[in-house]
């Protein structure tokens, strides 16, 4: 229980750090750390009824989110010569404050939602919701395509957090499927970034607005 709460607090802290961070490299590392920490969640949330599927889920998550994604994203940074500075539409301090507001909204919403009683911790649903909203916020408030990929990963981490909390009810197949989806998505996004970069000399998505036929 205490360890689960500790992990959830770490997830919130990494999300806040992402909202206030200005460097793409450190952001990738933070997302990787969040993935590793979340990988441990299924083991800790179900210590008393630990089974093979939770262990496999944990190993798979840590391997993909903690090793494969960072390696792939760092490679994209290197190959596509992405600038190390994140260009935000919304400033870092404003983003951080928005994060706190989002956290408050998540807690407020979860008091009204009929959340299942079987959740491992009372903080689990709000933190999952916070991750989803924070990921959405990162996607809409950053200019660079790579930062948006990171936002997408944070969003998925939120879905995953909620799924782990409900794991006894949901099936392993769903979790594995989501993991695979995300893997393919990041793979495709990485390739797209690389190719866009080869065609054009920047990957600022705001310029897409000027594309007209």
């Amino acid at each position: 229980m205490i360890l689960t709460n500790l992990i959830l607090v770490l997830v919130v802290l990494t999300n806040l750090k992402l909202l206030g961070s200005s460097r793409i490299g450190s952001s990738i590392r933070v997302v990787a750390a969040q993935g590793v920490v979340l990988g441990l969640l299924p083991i800790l949330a179900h210590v008393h009824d630990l089974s093979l599927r939770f262990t496999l889920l944990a190993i798979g998550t840590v391997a993909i989110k903690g090793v494969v994604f960072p390696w792939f994203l760092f490679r994209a940074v290197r190959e596509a010569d992405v600038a190390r500075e994140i260009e935000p539409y919304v400033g870092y301090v404003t983003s951080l404050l928005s994060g706190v507001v989002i956290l408050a909204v998540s807690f407020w919403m979860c008091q009204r939602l009929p959340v299942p009683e079987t959740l491992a911790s009372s903080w689990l649903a709000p933190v999952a919701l916070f991750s989803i909203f924070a990921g959405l916020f990162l996607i809409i408030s950053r200019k660079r395509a790579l930062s948006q990929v990171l936002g997408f990963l944070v969003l998925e981490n939120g879905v995953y957090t909620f799924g782990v909390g409900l794991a006894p009810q949901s099936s392993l197949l769903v979790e594995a499927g989501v993991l695979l989806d995300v893997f393919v998505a990041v793979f495709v996004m990485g390739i797209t970034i690389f190719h866009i970069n080869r065609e054009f000399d920047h990957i600022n998505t705001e310029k897409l607005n000027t594309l007209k036929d």
Partner: protein
Amino acid sequence: MNFLSIIPFLLAITLAPLLPGIINRTKALFAGRRGQPFLQTYFDLWKLLHKGAVYSHTTTWLFRAGPMLGLAAVLVAVALVPLGNFPALIAFPADFFLFACLLGLMRFFTVLAALDTGSSFEGMGASREVFFSALTEPALLVALATLARQAGNLSLSAIFSQVSGGHWLQAGPVMALVLIALMIVLLAENSRIPVDDPNTHLELTMIHEVMVLDHGGLDFAFILYGAALKLWALSALVVGMIVPDTGAVWLNLVLPVGGMFLVAVIVGVVESTMARLRLLIVPQLLVGAGALAAMAFLLGLNK
């Protein structure tokens, strides 16, 4: 209120100038120097008290009143702060608002006196000090509100006598977040290194020191003593969160005082191992402290 509650106040007004001495000795140790005596601040205060002050013709009565009113404000603030499990001299529900208010008042008079000199450097320092304190004050208040919620009480003395090991076991993350937020507030409010460098002598980068450049003699002694008292008051908040209630009166007195010295050592270590942040980054750190405090508050609400 019993007669024992005078003890924290007496300890504060006698031992506060020791804290800067400990910080400086820690920094000297890290730098491989012997460092100044622990009692250096007392010597400085003694020397300054025997000096006269020189006043510029452009200043008004505000400039002379600033240090005096600042010291008065911080003395009352110190009287509100308990030491570990010892209740403070003055305690009433929601006194932490008055505490934050008095620290703000002290800063207000320092800023007024700085602006009164008409020096452009002092104006810059005043502007930065006010900007940064506007960001630390919410962090301080939200952190104290979280503690009040955890302890189920609104008075500083009651909060710190009720916060115990049980709270750390039950709501460890909440307490840890509050502790970190309070520590950042302590460093920022006392113009310590990640925010401001007390040793710098370049006016462009100074924040607090530049505001008191034109004060001398008795006035400067008041300012130095006020700064030491402010450091003591905020350290007492940090110490009060950690120190357990041992039951024995002597131990309850020795442990917090030892904790205060430990906080001073930690501040010294932070100063020796970190560089000062760029002025543009400082607001991020302070807003971050506020975010941590707000997060602790929200987590504490939904146990």
